[in-house]
């Protein structure tokens, strides 16, 4: 039984494009075509507007919270080709960095696992992916992968950090060496896996081909301690694939079709323990999927937008579960 426990009135003046909970589920960030990014405190079923951030000059497509150990940091990306990083300093939210290295709309931002440091990946319609690394004292280092996807890159998603075996033996003060990887999806119908080489450059490690139209979203599943890696991808072609890789070398990825929808599938996302995949499609629904015992993916719930007359008040009677 699924129930609405809170409804936040964002007062955005235009379409909302993204909403993200912070790490603890206490704060909510939203962004909209009205060019603003808003932050709400949603503890205990309440909604208090904490910040109304202006700075973008076009619709804002996505927001992403950084890991709390770095403080309260939020990234946003927009049609205006900018990526802005906002930070809460002494109780107020301010712009702490602006990245203008793209020639076209920036569609997706994703923070790397906190173990790697403070690193942000950004995917843009100019086909490039840029990686911003915080190096201290307000400085951000930029690495750019040009032509990552022809026509444009729509989504980026980091692989979970794998603890290297030698972590315990590291001399004190030294940072352990992780193998950093992330996945990207683009208008070339491909999903690409990228790996950071020892010299700090990013190299394309794998190409995953199965979609017949633009890849709209990719989501790398959190690690649950099994040796397999799992990625979900969705596309304009209405398909959602689950890619799994079993071997330790990470070379063979096999796709399994989750479902073929009747319309574009825009967004996929894993729950924090990776046992449920949520899929949002053009059919006005969010569906939840789980893997069953025989390896088939089963839809366990439909979350549907309400049909009926325009209404701004939510009463008990309108919440309806079958």
């Amino acid at each position: 039984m699924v129930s609405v426990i809170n409804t936040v009135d964002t007062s955005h003046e235009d379409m909302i494009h993204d909403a993200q909970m912070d790490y603890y589920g206490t704060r909510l960030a939203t962004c909209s075509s009205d060019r603003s990014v808003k932050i709400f405190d949603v503890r205990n079923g309440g909604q208090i507007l904490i910040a109304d951030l202006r700075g973008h000059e076009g619709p804002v497509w996505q927001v992403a919270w950084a890991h709390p150990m770095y403080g309260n940091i939020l990234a946003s990306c927009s049609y205006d080709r900018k990526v802005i990083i906002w930070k809460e300093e002494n109780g107020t939210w301010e712009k702490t960095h602006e990245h203008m290295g793209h020639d076209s709309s920036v569609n997706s931002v994703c923070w790397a696992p906190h173990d790697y440091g403070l690193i942000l990946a950004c995917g843009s319609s100019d086909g490039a992916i840029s990686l911003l690394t915080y190096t201290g004292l307000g400085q951000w280092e930029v690495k750019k992968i040009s032509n990552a996807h022809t026509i444009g890159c729509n989504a980026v998603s980091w692989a979970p950090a794998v603890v290297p075996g030698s972590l315990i033996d590291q001399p004190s003060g030294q940072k352990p060496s992780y193998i950093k990887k992330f996945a990207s999806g683009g208008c070339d119908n491909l999903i690409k896996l990228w790996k950071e080489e020892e010299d700090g450059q990013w190299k394309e490690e794998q190409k995953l081909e199965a979609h017949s139209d633009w890849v709209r979203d990719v989501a790398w599943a959190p690690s649950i301690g099994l040796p397999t890696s799992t990625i979900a991808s969705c596309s304009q072609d209405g398909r959602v694939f689950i890619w799994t890789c079993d071997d330790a070398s990470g070379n063979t990825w096999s796709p399994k079709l989750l479902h073929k929808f009747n319309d574009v599938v825009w967004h996929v996302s894993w729950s924090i323990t990776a046992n449920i995949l949520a899929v949002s499609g053009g059919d006005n629904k969010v569906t939840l999927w789980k893997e069953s015992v025989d390896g088939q993916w089963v839809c366990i719930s439909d979350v549907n937008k309400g049909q009926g007359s325009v209404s701004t008040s939510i009463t008990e009677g309108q919440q309806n579960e079958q």
Partner: protein
Amino acid sequence: MEELDGEPTVTLIPGVNSQKKQMCFDWGPGEMLVCETSFSKKEKSEMVPGCPYIHIIRKDIDVYCKILRKLFNESHGIFVGLQRIEEELTGKSRKAQLVRVSKNYRSVIRACMEEMHQLATGPLLLHLLDWVRLHVCEVDSLSADVLGSENPSKHKDFWKLVTVLVLQGRLDEARQMLSKEADASPSSAGMCRVLGDLMRTMPVLSPGNTQTLTELELKWQHWHEECERHLQDGTFASSPHLEALCKIMLGDEAALLEEKELLSNWYHFLVTRLLYSHPTVKPMDLHRYAQSSLDVFLGGESNTEPLDNILLAAFEFDIHQVIKECSTALSNWWFVAHLTDLLDHCKLLQSHNLYFGSNMREFLLLEYASGLFAHHSLWQLGVDYFDYCPELGRVSLELHIERIPLSTEQKALKVLRVCEQRQMTEQVRSICKILAMKAVRNNRLGSALSWSIRAKDAAFATLVSDRFLRDYCERGCFSDLDLIDNLGPAMMLSDRLTFLGKYREFHRLYGEKRFVDAAALLLSLMTSQIAPRSFWMTLLTDALPLLEQKQVIFSAEQTYELMRCLEDLTSGRLVHGEPDAQQLQDDDIETTKVEMLRIGLARNLARSIIKEGSLEGS
């Protein structure tokens, strides 16, 4: 759980009807966000304003019901106790223990139901025990009512009470009621006595009874016939109440159905029916009687409810079906998780292999425990449940525990203790780092330092130590002296931290006027390379007062060392490019300091040489 027999549940989110809009969403740690959006990105804004609402949705909101919290807490204790039985007992004593666990669960449920019953409002979340509420709790209060009145047998509900007691097979209590009626109304005393005798003599199979089933059957047949005879003879003809009771005791279906309201549901009807017509029913026949009871009672009026399906499955001893039905019908995982766990311990469950958890028990426990983590204090119960899930319990705990908001220091400490007890070093490090960073941002350096020590995070300890040292340079004193003074072996965590500790020790020695020791320590800080280069000037400046003491503190050897350090330092400082005004001013100060040091060192050298060269002791 392999196939879904029905369509997945559709949850409608109240919102604006539209053709072109979709729903975007995000996972929170325990919930989901949904809102209306349009994914096809258009640059121009739409003429029609979108829906500005974001809905936060969650399943298992029952976790937040206050009454259930008590249930969760108490059942948690029983659960943990059950897991530990495994290790200790075998055979008969084990079986007895398992039965006791079941009874404990039942009594906890009953206590919860009683509390719920007292609340007139609120949904009944555990429908399965509806009859406990109605037939135990309600009867008790009815009984108290009637017996408490002046003339119990004249109470308006008297016969209702007696009937209910008979329906529930509580014949001793029914007999006591009848004796009150006999006392109050002599005319019916004879009849009451007869009926009372019948009640007393009804053969029952009780534990400790050595008779066989066949013997019991025989006895019961005789008793049944005796009741029938009384009915035929019209013994109770003048009291419709007593006659009705006799018919019930004969298992007369029509008489039972007369009392539909008191029975209130088909499974009570089933039990009463079996009690008075087939007392020796065999388990394998149960489901037949169950099905027919359901049909007769409902009379084809209403459809079966999910609860009915659960019970029918239970009467067929189809455990998997029971679990399946429960999972779909009930609103949270509490019942089905505990039930499955108990059944597993009784070895009644053949496991299926599921991807999430190696067997069904673990799958259900994981679901239940995950739900608990959404609650600000019940998460602590969830920890134990994860502990007893051997396959995915640990990793699930790791993922969930990091997401607990660390709103207070006590909460943070609780969470850390849980992680430390389980050697979850990554989580400890991550949580301590978050707290350390927060402390640094709020300028609580002592707190930051202790968190980084607890996290065994050398890099961060270095960072905080640097801040301490910088603070000292700016303000001339240390904060959080207590902490630094009592670092102990933790000092070894990072070089910078060691330096901080030792440097503070130097100041202490100086304060205690143990100048020689202080001097030796100061020198060693530089020569052992523990002190960062950037700090050497400060150290040398600290040496000045020691150089200017009346007595000679630094030996000649030590003075040479100091001089070497100074030259080392100054030779490394070359000015690059054009110095600006500030730099010149700084340079000025530097130069003065260096000069003062050189003079001081030279003087000390002279004095120490003389002292060491002369013949006196000391």
